[in-house]
Each structure stands twice: as structure tokens, then as C-alpha cells.
């Protein structure tokens, strides 16, 4: 699967070669970077721009300026994102889009605004009250506002059909991702998560059409594999929805005796549970889809169906033995959710282990010991 290793090199490359190539081949075309999780990529795509998800800088950039701006107790992705900006790495982008996911990310939005006054920096308010009949209309308005800004930045007019087309394109892309996840849940030995991860992650910077093609090939290849099934436990990973764990850590988890049968890695790439309807007002359709169709996560609040129910369902659905909380250091939403998650898992008799990581960490001895112990405690009688 050489192609995916290449993908890794490309997303690991902080000069964003894929983005530069895309722009070079389309004079005047714009690229918009967005902070992870729930971003309306359809709108950016419909405006003829390249949506790119910023997933921090991993361990490939020393924080030299950003920690003077964001002090102690702030997660790494916030700092490395700003660091990339302050060190010119974000030069290929024409705008940044942030949303309500957490307080640090929100403040980052406005710190970026101050430090890059020439740049289009916007903040999307995603409703936290889906039970209100007014929420959908509000969000549709909010999407419309953003679309107008994008039209201004791109100097273009975006008609509803363009948006509908983009919705269709992304619906297809996400349905493939959902299918890949289904296959892995059934045959984790066929699709090592380290590999799947890189494949999905590629979608954070590749043009969606190109990524969709990759997913199709991969799906074919994976299906035809016949890898030996190891004596491993089946786990669900929860908590890595924003800042991403280093790839070696993901591989280490499998290496230490776990099959990852479901996860919330780069969840922003696959955040609708079913297709977004293409008929009617496309913005309203996207809005209602966020409210009724998007996957749960610690940064989305819907008091009609608690997230912990979502997690327990996920474990049952994927026939997992246990849950591994893989939480980014200083990620407060994930810290908070751990408590009710833990309570509900224990009520349901599902074993779990909580681990903390930082995107920039590169030695994992302690984590390895904890994961192995966890596995040993489940396999040794």
C-alpha cells in the first residue's frame, strides 16, 4: 500500500505541497484552511476553493513563538497552528475558518485575526441548542453569511446548484469512508488502522474528487486481502476528534495487541451519519443535517440524545471488548466527557482505559506499558 505511506509524507509536509500544486494549476484559485471538526466544506468547495483542515504541526515544528501567546495549560494544536502562521507555513492559504468547538480554539480565531489582519479569518457559530425550532434557520443564515464572505474573497457568485453539486460530491466521499469503516469493523485484520488513518487523513488536504478516487481503489484492494487474524482485543477509540495522535502511537496501539474497530480520528472528514439531502434550500439542508445527522463528539451538544449513549451504541455496534480514551493533553471538552462516558461504560460493564497524548510527543514507553497492561488484564485469566 505504498500510496498511503506517500500520503503520510504529504500531510506530514508543513509546506502543504498538495495545496500549492492545486493552486499553481488553477491561477487565482483560493484555498481556505479550517480548524478541525465540523466545517462546512461544501460551501468552500462550492465557491471553487480548496478546503484544507489544519491538524496542527505534530512533532515537525518546534514551538518557538506561539507559547508566548498561549500560555500553560493550552493544548498543542492551538499553539502549533498559530506557530505555523507566525513562521509563514500558512502562506498558501487565503483564509481561515474557526468554529465554536472550544474556548481555546475560539480565542485562537481572534488572535489569528490580530496577527494576520490582511487575511480573511471567520468564526462560525454552530448551535448548541438543536432542540430549538429556531436553530436550523439560524444556522442556515450563518452559512449564508459565510458563503457571502467566500464570494467576496473569491470574487465569485455561488448559486444554489453549485452548493447542491458540492453536497453530492461530499455525500459520495463520506459514504465511501463509512463503508471503509464498516469493512474494518468486520475485518480489522484486513484494514490496519494505521493505514486507514492515513487514507482518511489525506482527505483533509486533497481535492475531494481526488480523495474519492483513492478511497475507491483502497476499498477494492482492502476487500481482496487475506491477512492472518491476530489474538488481539477489539477496541473503540474515543477522544481524538481534534488534535491528532502521532501516527506511531496509533500503530503502537495495534502493535500492543489491540484491533481498533471504531474511532473518532479526523472525525471532521466524515461527520455526517447519512447523506445530506440535495433537494430544497441547500443551506437549510446542510443546517438541518448538522443538527440531526452529524456524528456525536465532545464538541457538539445535543441534549436530545446524550453523547454517552452514542459511545455505548458504538461499542455494541462494533462488537468491541473495550474503549480506549485517547485524549489530547489539555483538551478540556474530552476531559469533561470522560466522566459521564466512564459512568455509562461502567454501568454497561465495558472496560476502558484513559490515555493522554500530545501531537508532538515521540517517545511512548509509558503509554506502551499502560496499553499492554490493559490488554494483558483482558486476555490473561
Amino acid at each position, binding site marked *: 500500500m505504498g500510496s498511503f505511506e506517500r500520503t503520510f509524507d504529504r500531510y506530514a509536509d508543513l509546506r502543504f505541497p498538495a495545496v500549492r500544486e492545486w493552486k499553481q494549476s488553477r491561477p487565482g484559485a483560493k484555498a481556505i484552511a479550517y480548524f478541525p471538526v465540523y466545517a462546512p466544506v461544501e460551501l468552500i468547495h462550492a465557491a471553487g476553493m480548496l478546503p484544507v483542515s489544519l491538524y496542527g504541526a505534530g512533532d515537525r515544528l518546534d514551538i518557538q513563538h506561539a507559547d508566548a501567546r498561549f500560555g*500553560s495549560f493550552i493544548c498543542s494544536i492551538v499553539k502549533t497552528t498559530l506557530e505555523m502562521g507566525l513562521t509563514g507555513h500558512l502562506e498558501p492559504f487565503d483564509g481561515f475558518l474557526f468554529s465554536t468547538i472550544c474556548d481555546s480554539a475560539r480565542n485562537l480565531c481572534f488572535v489569528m485575526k490580530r496577527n494576520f489582519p490582511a487575511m480573511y479569518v471567520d468564526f462560525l457559530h454552530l448551535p448548541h441548542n438543536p432542540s430549538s425550532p429556531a436553530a436550523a434557520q439560524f444556522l442556515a443564515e450563518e452559512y449564508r453569511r459565510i458563503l457571502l464572505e467566500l464570494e467576496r474573497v473569491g470574487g465569485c457568485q455561488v448559486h444554489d446548484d453549485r452548493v447542491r453539486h458540492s453536497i453530492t460530491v461530499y455525500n459520495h466521499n463520506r459514504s465511501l469512508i463509512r463503508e471503509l469503516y464498516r469493512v474494518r469493523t468486520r475485518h480489522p485484520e484486513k484494514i490496519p488502522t494505521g493505514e486507514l488513518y492515513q487514507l482518511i487523513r489525506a482527505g483533509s488536504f486533497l481535492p475531494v474528487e481526488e480523495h474519492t478516487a483513492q478511497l475507491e481503489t483502497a476499498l477494492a484492494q482492502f476487500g481482496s486481502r487475506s491477512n492472518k487474524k491476530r489474538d488481539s482485543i477489539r477496541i473503540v477509540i474515543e477522544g481524538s476528534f481534534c488534535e491528532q495522535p502521532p501516527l506511531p502511537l496509533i500503530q503502537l496501539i495495534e502493535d500492543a495487541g489491540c484491533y481498533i474497530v471504531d474511532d473518532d480520528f479526523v472525525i471532521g472528514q466524515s461527520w455526517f451519519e447519512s447523506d445530506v439531502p440535495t433537494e430544497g434550500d441547500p443551506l437549510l439542508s446542510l443546517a438541518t443535517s448538522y443538527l440531526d445527522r452529524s456524528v456525536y463528539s465532545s464538541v457538539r451538544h445535543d441534549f436530545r440524545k446524550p453523547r454517552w449513549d452514542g459511545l455505548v451504541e458504538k461499542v455494541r455496534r462494533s462488537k468491541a471488548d473495550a474503549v480506549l480514551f485517547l485524549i489530547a493533553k489539555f483538551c478540556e471538552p474530552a476531559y469533561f466527557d470522560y466522566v459521564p462516558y466512564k459512568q455509562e461504560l461502567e454501568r454497561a460493564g465495558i472496560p476502558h482505559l484513559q490515555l493522554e497524548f500530545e501531537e508532538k510527543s515521540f517517545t511512548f514507553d509509558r503509554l506502551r506499558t499502560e496499553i499492554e497492561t490493559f490488554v494483558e488484564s483482558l486476555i490473561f485469566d
Partner: protein
Amino acid sequence: MRIAAGVDVGSTQTKAVIMSDNGGVKVLARALVDTGANVQRAAERAFDTGCQQAGIHSGDVGFVVGTGYGRYKIAFGNTQMTEITCHAKGASFLCPGTRTVIDMGGQDSKAISVGANGEVLDFVMNDKCAAGTGRFLANSAEVMGISLDEVGPLSLKAQHPVKIATVCTVFVESDILSYLAQGKTGEDILGGVHIAIAKRTLSLARRLNIEPEIAMTGGVARNVGMVRALEEVLGRKMLVSPDAQFIGAVGAALFALEKLDQSFESGIWRGDHAVSGGH
């Protein structure tokens, strides 16, 4: 004869400097003792040694300013000032033209923007945990079984400096151990350690407007490797006084001299004794 003294009680070492001003300010003596367990006694020892060296009687000293973390423990001090204020003053005396001070002590590191008259314009410090301080170096030396003085020179010989993951002074030990286990050379490991601290220190200093001249003070200034590492990340040379570790005490002594002609009431002299109801 107008004589004053400054005593800087640091976490590891206590320094005393005796200065006189008869038409020209000059350092009569400098003394250095280990702080050890009894801060008060350390201050006295340093002060007395200083007086002996200067060949004067402690009674000849007109005013004593105490600084450093142990400053409130100096029984014979007339007033106290923070080491930040004193470092700025001392640096611009020993290294004229100083605009930025980078101080690396045993347990904290700080950066100070200094005005033309040695006044503090702005400062930042790292004092909540010992990450990236002189102690970090001392521990590394300890783990590798070499003396602290060898650390700097060795680090200069690094070919491929290793990457140091942790900044925790205690955890760096296990990092070093595993590198040794991987067969990395002491030079490369120390090189990595020095770069790690230098970068951390610089990112602290960046909170200020770093302006030349940059002076390095504190015990770590004696470490050639650290000076080099810092100059590399800074991209420019620094002023390093041979008396770097005495700068706090010198600053204190200079204030003590000024104090000889000033009244207790003028603002800057509001040491804790001077203020009613302070501590």
C-alpha cells in the same frame, strides 16, 4: 569613605559584593558561598567574607541591599529588592549598553528588558517548575556521571544532537538513559540538552522585545556550551561578564550606594521594612 554592599541569596549560592564610591564606583570585593540549609547564616558568611577581602570592618558598610529569593532572611539588610531589578542594574553596570538580560539560575530563568539607566522596562520569568533551568543541566551531568563544569565543553563537540522530549528536570534523566542505551554519545546527548534549554529560554525571552545588547547573567553563564547554544538560537553574540554570577549582588550594591545619599521615603526604596503593614 562611602561603602555599600549587595547580598544576593540564591537557591544554591549566596553572593556578596562590596562597593565603594569615591568619585568613581568600584567593586572592593566579591564573595560567594553555598546557600545550604541556613539562608540567614549563608548571607552573613558571604557578607563577612566580603568585608574581610575588602579589608574593612562590617561597620564601615553604610547600607546593605538584599536580593534573591532569600532576601527577606537577611537580618542585617537595610532593605530588599527583587533580583529582577538588581540584575537589570548590575548588568548595565558590568556590561554597558545592555538592553536585554537573559538570566539562567539554578531554579528559574528570566528575561529582562533594560532601559538606558539600567531600569527594568519589562520582564518574564519561568519559576513554576524547574524545566529548562540550570538544574536541568546539573541533573543531566549527574545522570551521565560527569561534573557540571565538563557539560558545556562536551556539548560543543556534538555531531548530531539528540532530540530531548521532556523539559521536566527529573524526567530528562530517563530520556538520557534511553539515549545512552541506544548508544548515543555523551556529546550528542548534551548537545541536545543544551539546544532544548536554549530554545525554551528563547521562547521565554520572545515575550519581550529582544534588543541588543543582550547580556547573559546567572550561574549558567559560566557554561560555554549554553552561551554558544543561546547565541545560535538568538543568531547573535551576547555579552557575558566574567562576574556574571555576581550581577545580582552588584546591582544590589549599586542601589545601596545610591541609597547612601537618598532618603528612605523616595518611592523606589519601599522595601518591606519601609512600608507599614507590609509583611
